[in-house]
């Protein structure tokens, strides 16, 4: 049955491609989460009326975020080739793709983090200040926990975007399901491979969305 429906699918290759996609997405999501929160905190804290209010720094970080966020991912990969060569010694393969994935996704996530932090009730921050909390305590005990549902739903959106970025990372030989669908499916005229890859990507996205929603709901006590 499966053999007749998907005559050209090599399930070993398919599994390997799935693993590559999961690897690239997983590592870049973790790195994006950390980096995005750092950048988002910078954006938030340097904005008007906050601890490190600093117009120059705020605009600098904002410009970096806006620029990297606006460059189409496929072009970002090409632009980052020299950096990958210098940092990693090569611009090919899944690890080189990670660099582009993180550089591309972290600024996008940073904006979502900033929005989440802005939504933290200013009164609560003031209450913490009134209790004698230090800035570090306010960041760790108030800002991050209070915005956590927004941070998690933001990283869910970002990771789904990352899955589609991994597909484009095929151009630098990163592998993955998107690459398989393009090379083996489209270029060699095997629509069953394209369809199978698509289904697997959809399953991956649904699982991530489901986990993200579940965690967000668990965290949200409002």
């Amino acid at each position: 049955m499966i053999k007749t429906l998907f005559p050209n699918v090599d399930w070993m290759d398919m599994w390997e491609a799935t693993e590559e996609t999961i690897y690239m997405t997983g590592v870049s999501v973790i790195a994006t989460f950390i980096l995005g929160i750092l950048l988002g905190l910078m954006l938030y804290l340097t904005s008007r009326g906050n601890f490190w209010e600093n117009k120059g720094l705020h605009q600098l970080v904002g410009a970096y975020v806006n620029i990297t966020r606006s460059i189409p991912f496929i072009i970002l990969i090409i632009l980052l080739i020299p950096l990958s060569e210098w940092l990693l010694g090569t611009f090919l393969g899944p690890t080189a793709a990670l660099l582009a994935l993180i550089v591309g996704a972290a600024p996008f996530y940073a904006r979502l983090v900033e929005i989440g932090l802005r939504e933290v009730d200013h009164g609560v921050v003031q209450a913490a200040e009134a209790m004698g909390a230090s800035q570090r305590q306010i960041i760790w005990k108030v800002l991050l926990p209070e915005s956590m549902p927004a941070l998690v739903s933001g990283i869910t959106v970002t990771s789904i975007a990352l899955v589609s970025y991994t597909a484009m990372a095929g151009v630098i030989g990163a592998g993955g399901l998107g690459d398989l669908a393009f090379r083996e499916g489209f270029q060699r005229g095997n629509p069953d491979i394209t369809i199978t890859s698509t289904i697997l990507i959809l399953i991956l996205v649904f699982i991530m969305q489901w986990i993200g929603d579940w965690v967000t709901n668990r965290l949200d006590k409002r």
Partner: protein
Amino acid sequence: MIRLKQLEKVFQTKTQNVAAVQNVELSIEEGEIFGIIGYSGAGKSTLVRMLNMLEPPTSGSVEVSGQDLTKLRGQKLREARQDIGMIFQHFNLLWSRTVAENIAFPLEVAGVDKAERETRVHELVGLVGLEGRESAYPSQLSGGQKQRVGIARALANRPKVLLCDEATSALDPETTDSILQLITNINQELGLTVVMITHEMHVIRKVCHKVAVMENGGVVEQGPVLDVFQRPQQEVTKGFVKQIAAPDDEQAEAEGIAPPERGQLARLSFVGASAGEPVVSRLIRTVEVDVNILQGRLATTVEGSYGTMLVHIDGTAKAVEEAFQYLEKAGVEAEVVRVD
């Protein structure tokens, strides 16, 4: 306990400078419940926020427990703040933490170890009457319960001062009473100095010993609650007094009253300890008159009552005369009201 000298706060906005607080001199003694009343925009919140440097003053000094807070920075200021609790109109609890975790927050900030935190939280939960709700989240509590958490949290580090900014303004009248009662109890049991900001007269009346009236950023009148509200000097103060005892109303309604066949109509103004029914009932027992209370507006404060009463004193001319003399001796101002 708290001394404010020449305190001033000017906000600079793009278009203008707003003098939110100007030239404030205040002295608040230890163990006192000190009320600050004023209409919206008078500068009350700005003033109270300068008491813990949430708002740094433009000039002047804020001395709490002998320490000038305007001179403190960094860690020193944070330590001083741990001695000043604060509660807010909108509670400002962390919704991501349970009741117990919210109360533990200031203890974590102060670096209290876990075991000690737990005992202290347990004590505080009992103090504010929230037993059994320790693991509830703020979203599962009523307004009054949230404010109880706010109070417990403010008291966690055993502060010497409690600042309340419109702490009951978001609550219904009954809940307001229970929170005011709790604050009074805390004041008495712990000897805490309390500063209460409000725009509601009855809050001042129910719990405060002293009051300052604010208008346009300045304190226009201050002193013991009873003194200030019996003999209001400023228009603002008179306005607030009217919220409780409204002589204008009585004047209007006296017009609808028929002239008595015998005796006199009189308006009695009560002052302090002499207030209330005992005077009237003693009058009836001492002098040969009947007293009909036609209208009465009495407000009770911590130290006594004040207000006015419109009465018909019925009796022979001689007896009525005696009644007026009796009232005067009892310290009640009596004024004959003529209607026609």
